[in-house]
């Protein structure tokens, strides 16, 4: 896997000149009396690498869930390439080009590595029940094409040899990588990664950082990353958004955010300002 990217050192983002890929305007999410996300404004441009950080319970995964349609915002709008996606079902939003991984690995345990990735090709599937039953030449050709595309992706990410292994038999690091591959197979323009470095040791984290940058460059997609690990976030993100109790308290380049007193306060408490 070629690591063309530079690690360490923040890169200042070139703001998207045209319409942003993803835009949240004044998004609020309330569960009865609890406000999980409050008046959030967020924009992600083409080929952006943004980090979303904040203390535990800040609402980071909730923001993901809002974007991917698990929750519908109580107020505000979510637009993807200008089209409103708030309130749409998750599978519809994936069809728009948004893919995600989960905080706790959600691979399909009884399916093989190969089949897990194969699932992503549903979006572009031309055939359904009828064709599976008849098994004509068109069907067989399409299945072969899918199989080769799946293998191609698996090989790029060094999972090819494990193609028939049940997904849950893989070592943890490989499982996380498989999840990313699976999400990529849906051909998204925006990839949401939910704590991809969780549970990894320093070596694995460096490999992950290289992987994320590789993905961004090879597939030319935007990545929004929720992460607790500062090494990873500061290392690869061009822009960082900080959330606390559902409110955005800071946004900017890694250096700025790191020094921002509000951010320090949120993480360490009032006494440390």
């Amino acid at each position: 896997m070629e690591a063309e990217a530079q690690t360490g050192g923040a890169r200042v983002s070139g703001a998207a000149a045209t319409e942003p890929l993803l835009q949240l305007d004044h998004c609020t999410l309330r569960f009865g009396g609890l406000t999980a996300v409050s008046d959030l404004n967020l924009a992600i441009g083409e080929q952006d690498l943004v980090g979303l950080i904040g203390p535990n319970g800040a609402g980071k995964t909730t923001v993901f869930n809002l974007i991917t349609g698990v929750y519908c915002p109580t107020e505000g709008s979510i637009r993807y390439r200008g089209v409103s996606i708030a309130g749409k079902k998750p599978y519809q939003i994936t069809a728009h080009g948004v893919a995600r991984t989960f905080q706790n690995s959600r691979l399909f345990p009884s399916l093989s590595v190969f089949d897990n990735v194969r699932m992503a090709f549903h979006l572009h599937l031309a055939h359904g029940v009828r064709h599976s039953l008849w098994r004509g030449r068109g069907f067989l050709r399409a299945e072969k094409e899918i199989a080769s595309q799946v293998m191609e992706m698996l090989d790029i990410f060094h999972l090819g040899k494990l193609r028939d292994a049940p997904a849950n038999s893989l070592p943890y690091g490989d499982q996380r990588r498989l999840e990313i591959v699976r999400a990529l197979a849906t051909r998204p323009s925006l990839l949401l990664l939910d704590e991809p470095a969780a549970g990894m040791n320093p070596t694995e984290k460096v490999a992950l950082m290289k992987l994320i940058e590789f993905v961004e460059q090879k597939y030319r997609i935007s990545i929004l990353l929720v992460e607790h690990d500062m090494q990873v976030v500061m290392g690869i993100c061009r822009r960082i958004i900080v959330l606390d109790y559902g409110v955005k308290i800071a946004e900017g380049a890694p250096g700025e955010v790191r020094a921002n007193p509000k951010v320090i306060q949120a993480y360490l408490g009032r006494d440390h300002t």
Partner: protein
Amino acid sequence: MTVFLQQLINGLSVGAIYALIALGYTMVYGILRFINFAHSDIFMVGAYCGFYFSRMDPRHSLAGGLVVMALAMMVCAVLGIIIERLAYRPLRGSSNLAVLITAIGVSIFLENTGQLVFGADPKAFPELFPERNFTSHSGLTVSSDQLLVFAVTAALLVALQWIVLHTKIGTAMRAVAFNHQAASLMGINVDRVISFTFGLGSALAAAGGILYAMNYPSIDPYMGVLPGLKAFVAAVLGGIGNIPGAALGGVLLGLIETFVKGSQFSTYSDAIAFAVLILILLLRPAGLLGKVQVEKV
């Protein structure tokens, strides 16, 4: 008007019995998130216990009847605890489906063993308590058996409420219902609390079984199936896991069923319970008194 009031009394009487059975379902679900399919058969065993124990006391007295009921409740409590220990505890932690199937297996086992041991043909339930009918001058009739249903159910509900809210074991039950791990970290013996819950629920089912048999005096090994399913619906109606909800649900369902039986749709009265179930699960799955659970993604 008299007809309406009569239906009301009958409905409350049936509803009270459903409430007793529903309590068992709801307590077990609250603590284990699992529907004890075999609960309805404990109800049946309770009725048969009443049948056999009543032979010990040929004089039909109030005291004797209460003793028979208490004995039946104790026997069924033990039975419930044994079933939990043998069939459900080994599966704690495995998929919900496996426990559900096991519960179905236990239910079938009890029904068929009952058929073998007690005989398949229906038996006439004896008069446990001295029977009298009380009729008002407007024609309203309440039988002493129905009065007993109200009295016993009320007494048991009060006792249950006291146990759950004012005793150590009751508090432990509520803690385990929230979170097993946290409760055990607080020093609660989760296994014992679960056994106690099963025992308590089974005792209530036994009481329900005897009261039911008193009012519909023909008992057979499959008598628990339909009342059990209806009581389950009652528990869901009130909010499964919620104790006052089970009581409320039982009474409501009893009333609905009695009024339907009195109307032109009477042949569909058995299906009414299922219709109610489906409606509730579609419109308000948490039930009337239940809390809405949000799944964390």
